[in-house]
């Protein structure tokens, strides 16, 4: 019994640590984008390294959580869904990492007049992902509160869509000094930033179904 209690405790700690990693990853993403836009490359590189570490930790924790659930037969009825949720959350930190790496490799030239819009876009997209984490934590402790927490995820995702739509319109309709290749490149970077909120929405859809199932 002692061994069993210890396994349960360890698994709870690992899941919490995993969520912490996702939370921090989103925070670093937001700061990383700001550093890049402020042309503070030293700070940007630091954030990039931090995201790499967080993503690697999340991967390790994900594997350990899945292993523990299978080998110790924990949550047999919800195991597949919990594993999928962890996977969806891991996709978010993967998305964060790949976006910052794309920026690091491609070094997109962002016109200064678009800085505020890009920051707003990153803020909204990161907020959608950020609001997902407490909802995912609530699934384990108070599943009946999950759906109300998810409302914020859907709100920020739709905000991200609006900002992105306006930003793309601004780039393609108003920024006449930019050539088409530059515009396409900017659209590509915007798409990457926006993708974080889409991943959050995908995870939110899954979490919403899981919460109904467990509350019923």
């Amino acid at each position, binding site marked *: 019994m002692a061994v069993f209690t210890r396994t*349960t405790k360890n698994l*709870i700690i690992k899941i919490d640590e995993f969520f912490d990693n996702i939370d921090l990853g989103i925070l670093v993403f937001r700061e990383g984008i700001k550093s890049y836009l402020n042309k503070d490359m030293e700070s940007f590189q630091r954030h990039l390294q931090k995201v790499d570490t967080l993503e690697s930790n999340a991967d*390790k924790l994900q594997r350990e959580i899945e292993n523990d659930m299978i080998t110790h037969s*924990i*949550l*047999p009825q*919800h195991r597949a869904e919990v594993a999928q949720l962890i996977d969806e959350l891991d996709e978010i930190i993967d998305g964060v990492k790949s976006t910052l790496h794309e920026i690091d490799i491609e070094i997109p030239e962002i016109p200064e007049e678009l800085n505020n819009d890009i920051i707003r876009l990153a803020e909204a997209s990161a907020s959608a992902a950020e609001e997902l984490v407490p909802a995912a934590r609530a699934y384990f402790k*108070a*599943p009946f509160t999950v759906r109300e927490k998810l409302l914020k995820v859907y709100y920020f995702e739709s905000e991200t869509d609006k900002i992105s739509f306006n930003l793309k319109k601004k780039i393609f309709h108003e920024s006449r000094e930019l050539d088409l290749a530059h515009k396409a490149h900017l659209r590509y970077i915007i798409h990457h930033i926006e993708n974080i909120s889409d991943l959050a929405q995908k995870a939110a859809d899954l979490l919403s179904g899981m919460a109904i199932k467990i509350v019923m």
Partner: protein
Amino acid sequence: MTLFFLTSGLFLGWSLGANDASHVFGAAVGSKMVTFRKAAIIASVFFILGAVIQGSGTSQTLGKLGAVNAIGGSFTLSLAAAITIYMMTKFALPISTTQAIVGAIIGWNLFTGNHTDSSTLTKIVASWVAGPIIGGLFAVLLFILVRKFKRSVKIHLIRFESYIKTGLLVVGAFGSYSLGANNIANVMGVFLPAFNLQNLDLGIITLNSSQQLFLLGGLATATGIITYSRKVMHTVGNNILELSSEAAMIVVLAQALVLFIFSSTALSDFFVRMGLPPIPMVPVSSSQVIVGCILGIGLYKGARNINFKILGEIGLAWVASPVISGVLTFFLLFFMKNIFNINVGHRIDVPGVTVVAPVDQVISNTETDMSGIIKYLLMGIMIAGAVAMIYFYLLERKKTMEHRKSEERFWKNLK
């Protein structure tokens, strides 16, 4: 020859283990919360304990219904019940061991011209109806309590599930104990008047004649659990997997409580002391009680599409099982008596007067050999159990070590 006559009872015990005992751990094993090995060991041990410690109450009620006074009669009766169970299972009709054995006893009464005590029969039939209803009520009450507890404490899902997992083992043990106490009468009850074994001294405890028979029946049931219940457990588990893990635990607990209530003489005496009517000691159908529990929770949760087919099948089982079993017993007794010339019992009572424990020269045997056999059987089982435990412990340890090594290798290679 005596042992041969016991075989039909032992076969009935085996089928009880294979079918009815599966309901106790079905949800836990089907949902993979508990491994089959663990479930089978706990169910076997606690079934035997329940049968030996508390099995006499329900057996006395069956004795009142019809005291079979020849071992040939006991054999035929058990055989008829077992054939009925086999046939109805083959045609996928729901069957209860309890109802089959009650029908068989009435068949024996009719054949030998003995009077069937109508008050005992009414008590038994009433408990068949009351069992699922009480089970449903218990299940709903427990469900409300557990839900309120879960909401107020805000316990982590994984911790809660770990408690449920432990709860399933504890409740399963209690369920198996209650099943043993309540249902062993179905297996061995009809043999009790036909056996008079010497007391068996096991050092710590001394087993009387009926307890030795219950022990044998319990061992047959344990064999049924270990050899054949895995498939049934998975089927039961998958059928009620729609229930959450806590609901599954509640269903088993409610079922165990019902079986315990209908087999605890101490509880019945307590009721009498409180000025309440005594609880009838009646073997009830575990499978029907479990359906009552599931329906109770379903109704509480507001399920609109209650499966009336299942209810109809239970109703059919209430009527069909005793009738088929009774008719079959009547014909088998006829063949046994007239073709094989076996003594299947005779009229012992005056109408209206119930003889609880008839004493007959033909059936009172002092089987010293049987006690010896039981003693050696127990020793053998204990040694085999100890060896199996050590073997499985070492096997588990090896598996854990291999898993740990492979994990270490994985992360080393990744670096």
